[in-house]
């Protein structure tokens, strides 16, 4: 079609000339003369045809296609440049896309339910001015009844509890959400198979024993067969009927954790939490029930406030001890697990922003490099630009051509970047989380990420190409065609040198951040944990999932501990309800007898342990005695406290012999019988007050069997022996998280995040270093090549090779020094910004700053040596001859 129009136009113009010739002929000229005259009068047919086509708007696409073809040819002709540029861009864009895919998965994914934007969760403003989002069943029920005006449905979820499931054979772990009857209808989901729970809120306390499987669990453990509906299994040793399968892609209310099934609130749910009391009637907010609801259409989060305030006032008024609230608030439910909003804001968005920023900086450095390379090429192409301008290309045309070339480069880099991102995502997905808790990490190059990468690539293409394109289009044809090749202005070299200095500064920034993260990791790894991390192995046993009542559980626990102690290569063994940096913690409000009410007291965490605990873990006992097996359920209530707690509650005098109350229970006052050394419990930071009580007196499930290994023992062999012993004694008991204590510390609560942060930051740092090397090499090589003539003159005049080397290197040194100074400033800025993420390292850590300086300085100078030596060894005659 294009060609037809072109032909038509040419025909039209030719017809004009023919008519004119005819007119002239009629006026008396002879035919040939008339034709010639007509052509001259018409002017350049080519030019006007071209202008006509532009005026008709046909030219644009064809020009673009031409530019594209030319650009491709140009890239093919200089493979070195193309490969370098595409590689740099692929790394930069790939890093960004990979980090974005993590952010997308962890933070931006909506729950796969209809109208996910309407979902909210509730939190109670407590008297300490913090927020709790765990409610008790009676409170939840009342809120549900009293907020119908603003919430179409409010459901309660105990997200992520461990149950045990047995369908003929061994009991295995089963991660379940315990949900209220209206959970699925609130979410608006349809079952993939069978049905959901059918009981009403009024029937919740006597709901039949039914289970809904998750789609993934149904596929992997039941072969995806339709016959599972109606099948009987044993959940927590209770006969339960499988009634349905949840839809594909839905993994529970906490998106990152892979729920395997859904159970109704069961009357023995209290056993889950060990605390005494009846789940359905115990009003104190300790059941950890998450209240999630769907707002009515048109009601915003803020609009729920009045109804919630009313409900809160009513309930708190009626039950001041059971519902000590200052108010209720609603918050949007996102894929972030609902944290205790307020003071302990989830750091995840901040960390995500940090790493996106680092990746962005890597891309920026890549862009600076490529801009530099393009500037150099633009300089070499001045003649070509001049010719084009002389042939009639407007400035816009030249600019467009250069931009198309850089967009082409960016496009190739983007494609490469997606490949890099896909690879990175794959590697990250395989990251071990140090625990059997099924975390769903499915980083992938989704269409979100694809669009993001495209946008980044386009922006990069424009950013990178703009300055060189501008420079190239500013050409004056006359001057460029006449001038010799030595027409590089000082300004242009300064621009490039300036860019490289900026690049070195950016690279310094990245290196400093990487160094700080790596040192944080080092420090975290060297922290004295207060226990013997290298000699302990753990097995987690879930008594509740085997259906044991507390008394049976305690008995089985003692028996297992005895058998464990009898194993070869085991010097001590004990059972505990939590492990350091583990998934389970228990706490209660500690008050001294005769002091104010428990609501005002801070919560202190504790561990329920059997005898030999301190010997097993290697925690020092400073005063008094340890918890012993003889501390049984009927014996006196005792506890061993840690130093921090002793100092906090009994600063003067001996804590041994003192008593305290847990959760205000005056009938079970606890006597302190020993003081233990501080050790790490929750995470690496400073130990808090902590105490230990006998497992027999405060029983929790699951519990962790811990074994202290003899010197030189093989942890794997001991764990296998322990597992067999457990299976032999109690085959229906699920066992999981079988690992060494060292592996356990690399959990999400422990060192894993430090390791991840250090790894990512180190990768960024190395990428930045790589970019800086290429940048320095490029600009020094270019500058040296531009000075070939000058160098030839100097050599001819008697300069020694050493002097030439110094001459070229001097520029490198200046640029590098300037970059490093700027980089130190940038690094200081970044370091103070992320001081909250560091551990055991000062933000302005001299080792990191000094190390980065030395590394970058050395690398930059090495990169400049190559072109410098080449210049040094240049043949002066050839140098003088070349223009």
């Amino acid at each position, binding site marked *: 079609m294009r060609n037809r129009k072109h032909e*038509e*136009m040419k*025909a*039209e*113009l030719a*017809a*004009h000339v*023919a*008519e*004119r010739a*005819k007119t002239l002929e009629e006026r008396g000229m002879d035919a040939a003369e008339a034709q010639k005259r007509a052509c001259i*009068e*018409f*002017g*350049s*047919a080519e*030019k*006007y*045809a071209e*202008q*006509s*086509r*532009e*005026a*008709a*708007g046909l030219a644009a696409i064809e020009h673009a296609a031409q530019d594209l073809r030319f650009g491709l040819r140009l890239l093919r002709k200089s493979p070195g440049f193309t490969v370098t540029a595409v590689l740099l861009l692929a790394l930069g864009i790939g890093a960004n896309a990979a980090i974005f895919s993590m952010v997308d998965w962890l933070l931006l994914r909506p729950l796969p339910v209809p109208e996910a934007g309407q979902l909210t969760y509730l939190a109670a403003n407590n008297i300490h001015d913090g927020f709790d989002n765990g409610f008790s069943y009676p409170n939840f029920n009342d809120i549900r009844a009293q907020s119908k005006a603003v919430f179409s449905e409010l459901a309660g979820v105990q997200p992520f509890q461990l149950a045990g499931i047995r369908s003929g054979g061994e009991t295995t772990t089963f991660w379940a959400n315990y949900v209220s009857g209206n959970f699925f209808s609130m979410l608006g989901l349809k079952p993939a198979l069978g049905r959901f729970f059918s009981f009403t809120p009024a029937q919740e306390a006597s709901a039949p024993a039914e289970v809904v499987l998750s789609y993934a669990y149904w596929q992997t453990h039941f072969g995806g067969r339709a016959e599972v509906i109606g099948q009987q299994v044993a959940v927590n040793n209770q006969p339960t009927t499988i009634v349905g399968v949840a839809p594909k892609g839905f993994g529970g209310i906490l998106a990152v954790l892979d729920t395997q099934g859904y159970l109704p609130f069961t009357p023995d749910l209290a056993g889950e939490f060990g605390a005494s009391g009846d789940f359905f009637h115990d009003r104190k907010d300790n059941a950890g029930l998450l209240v999630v609801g769907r707002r009515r259409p048109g009601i915003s989060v803020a609009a729920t406030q009045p109804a919630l305030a009313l409900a809160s006032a009513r309930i708190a008024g009626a039950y001041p001890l059971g519902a000590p609230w200052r108010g209720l608030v609603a918050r949007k439910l996102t894929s972030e697990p609902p944290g205790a909003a307020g003071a302990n804001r989830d750091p995840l968005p901040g960390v995500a922003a940090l790493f996106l920023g680092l990746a962005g900086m890597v891309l920026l450095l890549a862009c600076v490099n490529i801009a530099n390379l393009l500037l150099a090429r633009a300089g070499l192409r001045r003649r070509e630009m001049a010719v084009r301008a002389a042939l009639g290309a407007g400035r816009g045309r030249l600019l467009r051509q250069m931009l198309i070339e850089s967009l082409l480069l960016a496009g190739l880099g983007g494609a490469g970047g997606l490949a890099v991102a896909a690879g990175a995502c794959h590697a990250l997905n395989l990251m071990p989380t140090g625990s059997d808790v099924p975390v769903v990490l499915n980083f992938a190059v989704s269409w979100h990420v694809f669009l993001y990468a495209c946008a980044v690539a386009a922006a990069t293409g424009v950013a990178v190409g703009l300055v060189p394109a501008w420079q190239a289009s500013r050409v004056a044809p006359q001057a460029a065609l006449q001038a010799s090749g030595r027409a590089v202005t000082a300004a242009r070299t300064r621009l490039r040198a300036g860019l490289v200095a900026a690049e070195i500064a950016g690279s310094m920034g990245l290196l400093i951040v990487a160094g700080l993260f790596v040192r944080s990791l080092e420090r975290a790894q060297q922290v004295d944990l207060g226990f013997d991390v290298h000699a302990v192995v753990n097995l987690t046993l879930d008594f509740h999932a085997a259906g044991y009542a507390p008394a049976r559980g305690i008995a089985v626990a003692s028996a297992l501990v005895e058998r464990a102690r009898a194993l070869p290569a085991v010097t001590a063994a004990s059972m505990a309800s939590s492990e350091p940096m583990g998934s389970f913690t228990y706490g209660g409000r500690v008050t001294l007898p005769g002091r104010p009410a428990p609501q005002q007291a801070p919560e202190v965490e504790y561990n329920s342990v059997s005898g030999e605990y301190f010997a097993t873990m290697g925690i020092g006992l400073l005063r008094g005695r340890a918890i012993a097996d003889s501390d049984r359920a009927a014996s006196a209530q005792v506890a061993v406290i840690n130093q921090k707690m002793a100092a906090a509650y009994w600063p003067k005098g001996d804590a041994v012999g003192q008593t305290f109350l847990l959760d205000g229970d005056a009938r079970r006052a606890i006597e302190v019988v020993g003081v233990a050394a501080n050790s790490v419990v929750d995470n690496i930071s400073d130990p808090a007050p902590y105490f230990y009580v006998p497992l027999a007196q405060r029983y929790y499930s699951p519990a962790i069997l811990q074994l202290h290994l003899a010197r030189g023992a093989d942890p794997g062999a001991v764990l296998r022996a322990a597992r067999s012993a457990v299976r032999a004694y109690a085959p229906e008991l699920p066992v999981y998280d079988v690992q060494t204590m060292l592996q356990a510390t690399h959990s999400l609560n422990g060192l894993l995040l430090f390791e991840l942060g250090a790894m990512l930051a180190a990768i960024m740092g190395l990428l930045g270093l790589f970019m800086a090397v290429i940048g320095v090499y490029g600009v020094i090589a270019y500058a040296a090549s531009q000075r070939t003539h000058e160098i030839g003159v100097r050599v001819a005049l008697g300069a020694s090779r050493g002097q030439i080397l110094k001459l070229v290197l001097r520029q490198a040194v200046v640029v590098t020094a300037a970059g490093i100074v700027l980089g130190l400033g940038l690094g200081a800025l970044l370091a103070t910004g992320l001081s909250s993420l560091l551990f055991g390292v000062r933000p302005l850590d001299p080792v990191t700053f000094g190390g980065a300086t030395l590394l970058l300085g050395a690398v930059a100078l090495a990169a400049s040596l190559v072109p410098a030596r080449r210049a040094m060894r240049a043949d002066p005659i050839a140098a003088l001859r070349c223009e």
Partner: protein
Amino acid sequence: MDPQAQILPGTLDLLILKAVSLGELHGYGVLLRIEQISGGALLIEQGALYPALYRLVRRGWLTARWGTSENNRKAKFYALTAKGRRQLQAEEQSWNRLAAAMGAALQARS
């Protein structure tokens, strides 16, 4: 023949619109008509007509159709649209205003 004046930039469009307003024309015909109505006093580079014609078509002031010329040759004919007629009036008025103002300015004494 009177000395020919080079046309001012931007006035070509006006001339074309005027020429075509008197009747549908092909490219060469427009040239002849302009020569005719200006009494031969305006110098126009012939080829420059065509980019102008295409531009005016693109802006919706002219329409083009293929037809046969007087010599039975296939030719593209250009005609004024309603929009083009309005544009012609507007440009005529502004040209006259300019000419009057210039004339007054140049005739001013002291």
